[in-house]
């Protein structure tokens, strides 16, 4: 009767259930705080700029990942840009089919190297083209809470 022997009956198979029980709280950080305040209070997009590397970060960062200088130049960016890629979501996170597929796009924001990933709205999937101009649609000021969901999505510019 040794441990070398293996389980040979599926009746004896067993697993032990458990979880990692926790909840996380995330601050937006120094850059994120200012970015989301900009969205919440003024419905505008803010980026940070590294002059040395000629890069404008969106979402903004307090550092340039290229040269590691501290970024202090904040710039207003137009809430619009070009569609770099998109995907049509036919199912939700649990794998259940969506009745109406959702579309997520990556919109490269004008005058920056950055982008936002958000829903594309007001367009039939077959009408969507890489490279098309889109603009962000914000929720009304009373609905905005300072999160990425303050943006409803992107619509044709």
């Amino acid at each position: 009767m040794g441990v070398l022997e293996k389980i040979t009956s599926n009746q004896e198979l067993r697993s032990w259930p458990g979880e990692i029980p926790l909840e996380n709280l995330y601050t937006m950080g120094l850059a994120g705080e200012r970015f989301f305040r900009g969205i919440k209070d003024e419905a505008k997009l803010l980026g940070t700029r590294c002059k040395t590397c000629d890069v404008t970060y969106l979402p903004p960062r307090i550092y340039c990942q290229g040269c590691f200088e501290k970024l202090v130049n904040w710039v207003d960016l137009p809430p619009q840009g070009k569609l770099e890629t998109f995907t049509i979501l036919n199912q939700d996170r649990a794998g259940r089919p969506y009745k109406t597929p959702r579309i997520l796009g990556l919109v490269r924001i004008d005058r920056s190297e950055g982008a936002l990933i958000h829903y594309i709205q007001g367009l039939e999937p077959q009408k969507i083209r890489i490279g098309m101009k889109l603009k962000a649609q914000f929720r009304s000021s009373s609905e905005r809470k300072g999160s990425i969901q303050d943006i409803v999505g992107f619509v044709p510019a």
Partner: protein
Amino acid sequence: MDRRVAVIGIGTTGFRAASPEVSYREMIYEAAVKAYSDAGLAPDQIGSFIACSEDISEGTSIFDEYCPDQIGGARRPVHSVSGDGLHGIITAAMNIQTGLFETALVECHSKVSNCIDPVEIMNYALDPIYNRPLGEHPEFIAGLEMRRYLYESKAQPKDCAAVVQKNRAHALKNPWAAYPANLELEEIQDSPATFDPLREIDRAHHADGASVVILASADWVKKNRVKNPVWVKGMGWISEDPGLEMRPWGRSIATQKAAKMAYKQAGIRSPRSEIDFAEVDDTYSYKELQHLEDLWFFPLGGAAKAVRSGLTRSDGKFPVNVSGGCLGMGNAAEASGLQRVLEIVTQLRGEAGVRQLKRVRQAVAQSWRGIPTTSCAVAVLSKGVNS
């Protein structure tokens, strides 16, 4: 000092969709025993032990606690790396190159069948401020990336289907594979899109399994007259932007840079002519095409042509993922990268049985850390020191 490092022992349980009859400890122990037996070594002859794992995949915080026992590493220098199996190989090689150790062991495993919701784990890796609040399935990232890759490379979804067909067919000849299949191109193409253009079938299914690799210094190899060492001639690993917003989406820049680094070390100038075959990441079908191009084997768009023409089939001129890859073997997380090394070693030793490639001397393994990362690792493995 001779800084060369060789693989001298391998062991694996093989990959399966689930492994309910063994605990993770028992599964890893089996792979370790095989590797020790293959290398003809005992645990006390190992200098440094490296295990690759991620807490949340295991369901245990600071999982490195549980790494030493089943690899013979208790009360020895053991550490964990939260990287792919190739990162583990690279770490082991560096450990040996310091001169502090003559041998090192790398362990990777997957017990993903024990995760009730692997999608949620992937979701937990997304940026919590900018991406996760959208609440969508994290594989939307693969959908975005696939579309951009197809756009830039002018490859077609059917080329991706051909990758699926090829790799799952390769797996038919690999007893270690969990998902072998003989599929028609049409049935793959007709498979429903999940995150269009990505289809359900473009994605590698999860698998359980454990793999162990033992490495040694050139001096050790010489001293002990190891008869079939496989040399790690070049190593490269790079992380690009972890954020989704600032990275380029068509290419894997990290793979390009990591490959350059590895090729430089290995003295490779013309990858396509100097490398005989490759085992690359194919977590999603399009990734194989993208990675082959970023490994400098083909120009942009060239990988699609290659798969179409059969060049990358096991009987082609440049076999890719003859093991079956992740699509055919199953995606066993960190162990997938290590399995690529195992496959290459097996092939270079001439021990691959029915799937043995002919006249192979040098190969490349490449890994990607998965959604949402950009991190990649590349290793050049070679039968002879000078090949």
